[in-house]
């Protein structure tokens, strides 16, 4: 029983990370229709930058925001240099571009930092809390809290602010949005910046628990994308739920089946979702126009 509880706790912790990545995917997808395969790299940028700064003696409360800002800058650069010049390109080209960007960033990370595995201390120490037979790292609470905060922020931002509504309008119809005077270019910049910041934040929060290294981005992207698909592409609530579910499935697989194959569970979930319910749990079914 306490074993199960322990698996659930760790499942929710990693699930919250996947949820944050999925929210980043969702934001960019909603604004531009692009699925950004480089999303996982932002997580690495956040984690590695924070680790380097903290390693150099910078206090966490300065290092963490700096790492998020670094991620955000890279996000904007990614949009400006790689996505924007290929706006009208066919889908296949966009896929190759974001994959290429992801590989490029991975290499850049290796060049700027190193090939080591990094971690730093949890924000509130690493002394585990005991709750009903399970132990919880205080950092887990930071992670879960962070994801919920991101979700709440996005819900508020997209529905309640002018800039956020601009993103939504751009997503549903770029031309019409431009016609009614919405600056669609700014909306795109903003969505890449925000989405990258969210990814970097996930990395900053997660690194004390999951560790990070230059090459984990693809796996992170795959997990985040599984979460997105499970929840339903385009739905923020779906991203949150999907992330938590993937995390739980993974933790239970690791606990009860084989820790070697915990990463496989995300993939198997994707396949099942795609075959059984392609629109995901919360996604609307759409009919492609012809």
């Amino acid at each position: 029983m306490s074993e199960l509880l322990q698996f659930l706790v760790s499942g929710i912790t990693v699930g919250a990370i996947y949820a944050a990545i999925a929210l980043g995917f969702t934001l960019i997808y909603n604004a531009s229709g692009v699925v950004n395969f480089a999303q996982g790299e932002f997580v690495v940028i956040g984690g590695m930058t924070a680790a380097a700064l903290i390693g150099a003696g910078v206090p966490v409360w300065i290092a963490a925001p700096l790492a998020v800002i670094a991620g955000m800058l890279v996000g904007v650069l990614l949009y400006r240099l790689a996505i924007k010049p290929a706006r009208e390109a066919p889908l296949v080209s966009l896929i190759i571009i974001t994959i290429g960007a992801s590989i490029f960033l991975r290499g850049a990370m290796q060049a700027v930092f190193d090939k080591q595995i990094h971690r730093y201390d949890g924000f509130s120490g690493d002394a585990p809390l005991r709750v009903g037979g399970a132990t919880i790292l205080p950092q887990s609470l930071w992670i879960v809290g962070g994801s919920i905060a991101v979700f709440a922020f996005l819900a508020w931002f997209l529905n309640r602010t002018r800039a956020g509504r601009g993103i939504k309008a751009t997503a549903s119809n770029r031309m019409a949005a431009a016609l009614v005077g919405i600056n669609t270019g700014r909306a795109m910049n903003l969505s890449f910046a925000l989405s990258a910041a969210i990814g970097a934040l996930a990395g900053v929060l997660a690194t004390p628990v999951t560790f990070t290294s230059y090459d984990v981005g693809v796996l992170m992207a795959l997990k985040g994308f599984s979460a997105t698909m499970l929840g339903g592409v385009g739905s923020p609530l779906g991203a949150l739920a999907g992330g938590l579910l993937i995390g739980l499935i993974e933790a239970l697989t690791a606990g009860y089946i084989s820790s070697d194959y915990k990463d496989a569970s995300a993939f198997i979930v994707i396949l099942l979702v795609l075959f059984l319910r392609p629109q995901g749990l919360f996604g609307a079914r759409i009919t492609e126009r012809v």
Partner: protein
Amino acid sequence: MAGQGTTTAPQESGREMQARTEPARRRVIGPGLRTFLIFAVLVGLGALIFPSSYFYRVGTLVWINTLAVTGIVVLLGYVGLVSLGHAGFFAIGAYATAILPNYGIPSPLAMLAGVALAGLLALAVGRPILKLSGYYLAIATLGLGMLIWMVLSKEAWLTGGPDGMVVSGMNARNLFKMVGLKLKSAEAWYWVAGFAAAIGAAIAVNLAGSPSGRALRAIHDSDVAARSLGVDVAKAKSRAFVISALYAAVAGALLALANGYITPETGGFMHSVEMVTMAVLGGASSVFGALVGALILTALPQVLTVFADYEHMVLGGIMVLTMIAMRRGLVPFIVDLWNRRKS
């Protein structure tokens, strides 16, 4: 004056394209055979100028990669489907060739078994996966590749785990010995790989100009229209997927034998990306693109150390830049330039 010429001249894009659209006339040699001969000449040219075994080894890699990338050309260039997991099929071919001889199965049979296994797997997962399009397909193939890679690195009892395994068995030298030719091992593998690449290219070119190939290229441009013309899109895509998996598996089997050693990284994500990069760099629409992409990305790392140090950045940069600056790849780009110069 030259400017006037360009505006009126009909644009022809690429030799193959021309072959496809040429009016009916009796040809002494078909496009497939012609491609085979061109490749054969190139293989021979390599052998003429190579000064040492080292060059032969690199040359062998070029041809093996060309073969694998030709499979990507069929899938990506003809049908427009992105697979990020093809290294998985490559590795299945390679590992079967490595593992089965340890259980008393001769190398040629092991190779066949590996290729068949890859084909069957592609067939089994292809149908459901290929119902997906665009992003979903890319993600699903990425996951599939990861799964294969995971099995290869975790099941150490069978595969040697992350350290890889030694491949024992056949040596191509013996093939040539049978016909009385004495070659060094590196040379022998070079000829075998070159021959395989030439056959592979000829087959892909045959396909392009055939009824099945037209259906595939139609799907590339509009699957709705293709379906309205009676093309069973799911079946056609699944066939292309299987064909391209077979290419990868044969290439993998050859690599295992020629190298004598393999690691799970042959099935890793980066290897899948490398194959796609070769295809898009050279030009995914033709087998000559596959050759040029494979040549550049195999040979350059041998001469330029930046390649080794900054492999990821170079590969990623090439993917992004090619897609932005010359979407169809080097070969069509150069052919277009050439045609424009001429007219």
